[in-house]
């Protein structure tokens, strides 16, 4: 065991401070120190994307990043996307199009999709498939996930147009 570091993070808009070993992975700090259990552990080798969070504006697999590396960062997890009575368009859309089954990949999937649509608000189906290729789902075969994301994109764009 090594000396613990003083870690500061901003998670879902809240300031968090805690002590952690430098070798501790970000996913375990989130899940076990901060009780943010939306992001999941599926592989610990950055293949499956169940642990995806947004860190300083980028999609990051929190299972292959030390919490020490994240020190000072601003992080958004699934818990910071939408409210129970005001869900994010993607959360609604995944339900509407049956874009989830067991739900284990869903937090990472939706978190990644929010970034994807920020990076590319008008993706083609091919761009969605490529942009989501870092997130594995074992249940849905992706068809309805792709549909959910494309539908959310149209809805977000329609809302933007209406607002202008």
């Amino acid at each position: 065991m090594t000396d613990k570091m003083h870690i500061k993070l901003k998670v879902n808009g809240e300031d968090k401070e805690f002590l952690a070993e430098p070798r501790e992975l970000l996913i375990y700090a989130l899940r076990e120190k901060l009780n943010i259990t939306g992001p999941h552990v599926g592989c610990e080798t950055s293949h499956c994307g169940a642990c995806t969070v947004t860190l300083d504006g980028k999609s990051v697999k929190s299972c292959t990043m030390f919490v020490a590396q994240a020190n000072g960062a601003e992080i958004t997890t699934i818990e910071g996307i939408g409210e129970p009575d005001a869900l994010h368009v993607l959360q609604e859309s995944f339900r509407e199009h049956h874009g989830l089954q067991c739900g284990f990949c869903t937090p990472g999937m939706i978190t990644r999709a929010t970034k994807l649509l920020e990076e590319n608000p008008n993706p083609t189906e091919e761009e969605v498939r490529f942009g989501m290729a870092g997130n594995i789902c074992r249940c849905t075969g992706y068809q309805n996930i792709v549909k959910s994301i494309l539908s959310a994109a149209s809805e977000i764009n329609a809302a933007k147009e209406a607002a202008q």
Partner: protein
Amino acid sequence: MNDMTPDREERSANLKGMGCSRKRVEDARFTQGKGNYVDDIKLPDMLHGDFVRSPYAHARVVSVNKEAALALPGVVAVLTAEDLAPLNLHWMPTLAGDKQMVLADGKVLFQGQEVAFVVASDRYVAADAVELVEVEYEELPVITDPFEALKSEVVLREDLEGQTEGAHGPRKHHNHIFTWEQGDEAGTNQVLDNAEVVAEETMYYHRTHPCPLETCGSVASMDKVNGKLTLWGTFQAPHVVRTVASLLSGIEEHNIRVVSPDIGGGFGNKVGVYPGYVCSIVASIVTGKPVKWVEDRMENLMSTAFARDYHMTGKISATKEGKITGLHCHVTADHGGFDACADPTKFPAGFMNICTGSYDIPVAYLAVDGVYTNKAPGGVSYRCSFRVTEAVYFIERMIEVLAIELDMDAAELRRINFIKKEQFPYTAALGWEYDSGDYHTAWDKALETVDYEGLRAEQAERVEAFKRGETRKLMGVGLSFFTEIVGAGPVKNCDILGMGMFDSCEIRIHPTGSAIARLGTISQGQGHATTFAQILASEIGISADSITIEEGDTDTAPYGLGTYGSRSTPVAGAATAMAGRKIRAKAQMIAAYLLEVHDDDVEFDIDRFVVKGAPERFKTMKEIAYAAYNQAIPGIEPGLEAVSYYDPPNMTYPFGAYVCVMDIDVDTGVPEIRRFYALDDCGTRINPMIIEGQVHGGLTEALAVALGQEIAYDDMGNVKTGTLMDFFLPTAWEVPNYETDYTVTPSPHHPIGAKGVGESPHVGGVPCFSNAVQDAFRAFGLRHTNMPHDHWRIWQTANGLGLHD
């Protein structure tokens, strides 16, 4: 009826009953990150367990030195077989009638086998301590090939030495487990010997793994004050786990509560009982604190629940015109170091005897030899009913090989051999009684939709263009027609560890007309909370939105055998309908009393009972529920509850017709799926949206298995595919869009006619993808090549056929 009364159509729609694509009630928590999976469980003072695992596939364990590990701050205990032996927990029974070491007892039989269990204050300390446990091994000769195992003098299972009788009859050799025979051997051989045409083929259905995104794990908490043990875990069969835990630990069953929380996919991986579950229980009993064990991905792929690994040899005979006359199948089944297959007791090779498929084959014979090797135990049904994937792959490949032998079109060969609609119920040569089917209609619909003849014409043109050097891509048309056997099963022939494979549902109607129903099953993503409420809504006339479905807590749910083998809808779904009918029968008596007519003078109408011939006189189910709790009705007990334990009279037999169109680049070996059409007949359809989702998912798992996913070993018994870097899980980038279709042939013996669908697409999909690859090379003389058809193997096939010359 006044103008304010909703019409029948509106009342029916309000129910959200069977047949509608009701949105899932589970999704609210999953989309907001509020699922509760086993690794999310956090209890005060909880400790973490981790395994020391064997790096060797076969070795003697000479000594285990725990000193350095125990000296590490935060380490609470290090358990070995010696510590478990006084409790008689160093070995555990398997579901297949064998026994398995919980922790290595003198030797190890596969790489990754559990040797010691470290318990520490957190997962990092536990992982550090695992490295500090010093184990001295003495290597033994490794056998990874079952044929070699049957010839070798090396005894793998020394604990069984001298035992010539196993759980399933005589053992022929010290590494042999069982021989399972079905059908008429002499009659089949006679037909084969005198047949006009015989096609023979040997095929290997490779070892793979269900690999759900969530690995296996458990949290055990022994409350020493009250003598109660609570066990949360990734259990597809929580009630069976409780019974097994009770038998193993000696704790009475009422003092054990087993809970399956949300499960992150199962696909068969979470049916078995694993050493981690046992060790977490023992560690909690020893330490008096809650103990969590969650395996990592590598441990998951190396040690818990492989699937398949069947070496199959087939002979199929036919007339010159293509009418099949007989089928012979022999399987050498590699079961690894322990026989931990998850099959009903009387079926050591599962339902492999459905291998006559969808065809009217007069005589058949099947023999399966189970063999021990130095590979991980398991043999689970990966997204299929017990070994049905193997059976369907076998027959669907044999049909293709026979078509080649006969120089016939494979679609036509299937058509002339299908069991005819009027032959149902149909007793197959290997004993099963198929409940219902209309194969010709499904097949014709499928072939017409994809323009089968057009595809064959295009394929023929492509072959010519290839020969002229105008293209380097070949085209394959993959066909499969499958019949599944699901819904295990009738208690008379299906049990697991002696427990009959019935299932159950308990319903409680609340006074204000909403309800809760609990079942013996457990969802792992199938959406039970949504669909079972739909069945009930149609049966009892209360909106699905007003019905809570609960599963997975043995303290509250009625006993059931769990969710696997597509059994939830055929068995628990039937129990739900039957319990609903009991509610309705009582509601009818209450309604008649309230309406002051005879019981027989009222009839059920969507959400109410009406007086026959006078529909303006009625009592809604809400009114009836209220009356059940607040009115003294002569001769009727208060309350409105029912329970049903359903013992199915037969299995159900869903079927389907699949077509895959594929282009294959012969120079890179890369297959590109142009089109995939899947027609499924699962009987009565409860929720079309969920059915379609199950089909997409099952097909994707089929794609994975056919095109690259495998658990491979080297000669030393090292697992070569132990991470997601090597073990193929398709991403959105590799997966096509699927076209889904259906016909409806209800099961005649199921209360609502439903047959189950979750696994059909996997069962039918694997041969369809494989047939597409192999069909692309048929014109160049390919007869059969084994899966998985990854790019390298496809390239080798092309190369072997001289297509790179």
